């Protein structure tokens, strides 16, 4: 049975608008104009237990709205949504007892309390038994390496420390489903890696289903077996990263370091997409010209120091999907 089933979910918001300036403000008093925003416009998907799904889209695409509906804190206008057979907003208390949520931009810890007291408070709020709590807490403390900061009040933590504590806090009651809303936002490289490694381990060893929204494509490449792309309230793509790539473009990049930085590289089957000093990036379609063939031609015609072939970065792919839906 799927962990999450979503069918045809729709949610619209009324956004009050006014013209700029003083006159606009005065007119707004008498007559409000409203614009209807389709935050969700027929969203459907289903997620199996233990999946680690990346949910991506530009700002305002409907990601957070989806997560809020799945978390039971927002009621959609229409459509079906079931998490483990429960309708989140109708059965809120039973539903939220079995999910964990981390909003990267907000903390769920109590600002004035030491971290460990926040944990103890959450234990009481979730009514976790002593033995279960101790086991989960100690395991999380070890996995996230937060032992040294347990007695520090939350307001004194760095963002990276706080995020690790927030992750622990969201899992003290051993939920089967975890929503992570931009968990790596603002983190430095080391903290990002620590968070990613933790999410992978959690998903593998505890079989926790994870839904991850992010703008960081490295998160997606490092973590997710499946990616859903949403824009303007509609799901544009749903599948593995390889599927996503193949759906947009078959293009591949040949990156060449020239001996002489003044040289130009030309080939009938490839075009230059980027040039930084002696490094030239050529885009080509491997179905039109096989990779070895192109390499042979380029190396025959130019003095080359080094070369390598790679896929266009995932950012590039995603940006193209976003742009295509704009038009």
């Amino acid at each position, binding site marked *: 049975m799927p962990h999450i089933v979503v069918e045809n979910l729709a949610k619209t*918001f009324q956004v009050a608008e006014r013209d700029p300036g003083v006159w606009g403000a005065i007119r707004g008093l008498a007559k409000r104009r409203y614009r209807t925003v389709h935050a969700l416009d027929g969203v459907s998907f289903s997620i199996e237990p233990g999946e680690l799904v990346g949910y991506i889209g530009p700002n305002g695409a409907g990601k957070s709205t989806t997560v809020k509906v799945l978390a039971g804190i927002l009621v959609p206008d229409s459509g079906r949504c079931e998490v483990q057979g429960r309708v989140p907003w109708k059965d809120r208390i039973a539903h939220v007892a079995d999910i964990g949520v981390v909003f990267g931009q907000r903390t*769920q810890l*109590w600002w004035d309390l030491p971290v460990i007291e926040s944990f103890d408070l959450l234990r009481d*709020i979730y009514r976790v038994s002593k033995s279960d709590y101790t086991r989960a807490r100690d395991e999380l403390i070890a996995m996230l390496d937060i032992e040294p900061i347990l007695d520090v009040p939350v307001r004194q933590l760095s963002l990276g420390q706080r995020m690790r504590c927030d992750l622990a806090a969201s899992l003290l009651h051993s939920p089967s489903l975890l929503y992570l809303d931009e968990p790596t936002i603002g983190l430095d490289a080391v903290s990002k890696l620590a968070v990613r490694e933790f999410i992978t381990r959690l998903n593998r060893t505890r079989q926790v289903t994870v839904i991850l929204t992010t703008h960081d494509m490295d998160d997606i490449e490092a973590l997710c077996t499946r990616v859903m792309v949403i824009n303007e309230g509609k799901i544009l793509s749903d599948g593995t990263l390889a599927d996503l790539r193949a759906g947009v473009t078959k293009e591949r990049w040949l990156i060449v370091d020239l001996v002489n930085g003044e040289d130009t590289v030309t080939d009938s089957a490839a075009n230059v997409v980027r040039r930084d000093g002696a490094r030239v990036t050529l885009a080509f379609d491997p179905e039109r010209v096989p990779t070895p063939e192109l390499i042979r031609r380029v190396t025959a015609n130019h003095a080359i120091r080094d070369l390598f072939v790679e896929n266009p970065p995932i950012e590039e792919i995603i940006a193209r999907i976003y742009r295509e839906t704009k038009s």
Partner: protein
Amino acid sequence: MRPYWAMLSARFRTLLQYRAAALAGFGTQLFFGVVIVMTYQAFYSANTTPQPMSLEHVVSYIWLGQALFALMPWAPDADIRLLIRTGGVAYELLRPVNVYWLWFSRALARRTAPTVLRSIPMFITAMLLLGLQPPASLASGLAWGMATVCAVLLASAIATIFGIGMIWTISGEGLHRLVSPLVMLLSGMLIPLPLMPAWSQTFLRVLPFRGLADIPFRLYLGDIPPSSVGPMLLHQLTWVALLALFGHWLLSRAMRRLVVQGG
């Protein structure tokens, strides 16, 4: 009960740390108490007709009010206001608890912790130096104690409703301006209710606000005999129950229209 008790005690412990605020509050209440008492002394010395309350009782009533000032639900609670402004309210809704009682627990801590800090020095100062009399009798003291517990519940129920109201208004500033003078006037904090005009007495008796100050204070003074404590507590608790029901209803409506803003 466990989640609510945990929230109450955590908030209580946090709020007990605000000692500087308590000291400032003590100073303010002392100043206002002295001014108000002097005003009444002037009125009473120029007065020739008999009043429904003696000056000694009025003075004690005023000092009780100043000592228990922090109990009053005269502003939406800062922590709920912050939760709503920052979107932290999303996390509150993600807890497997009844959100009304969770907020009620917060409100209860918000009423009790600062009151404990401020009332003790104020009681001592006012009793030794400023004319606050001890309870009229042991029975009056006990009746006052019970009515004060009910007043705390009543104040928390009212504060919780203001907190829920902020889901609509977000800033809470307007609510504060509107509610604060109303509570002050109708509870007896500003003018002891027996001194209010005769025509207003019926309304004042029915409304919940007298349960905040007037009922416990007059039980303390013996102005209401300890034998009538039953109906007084009943009045307070009936309003607590009604307000809790209303609060639940209001919150369920608020949650349907709640939009947790931003990413």
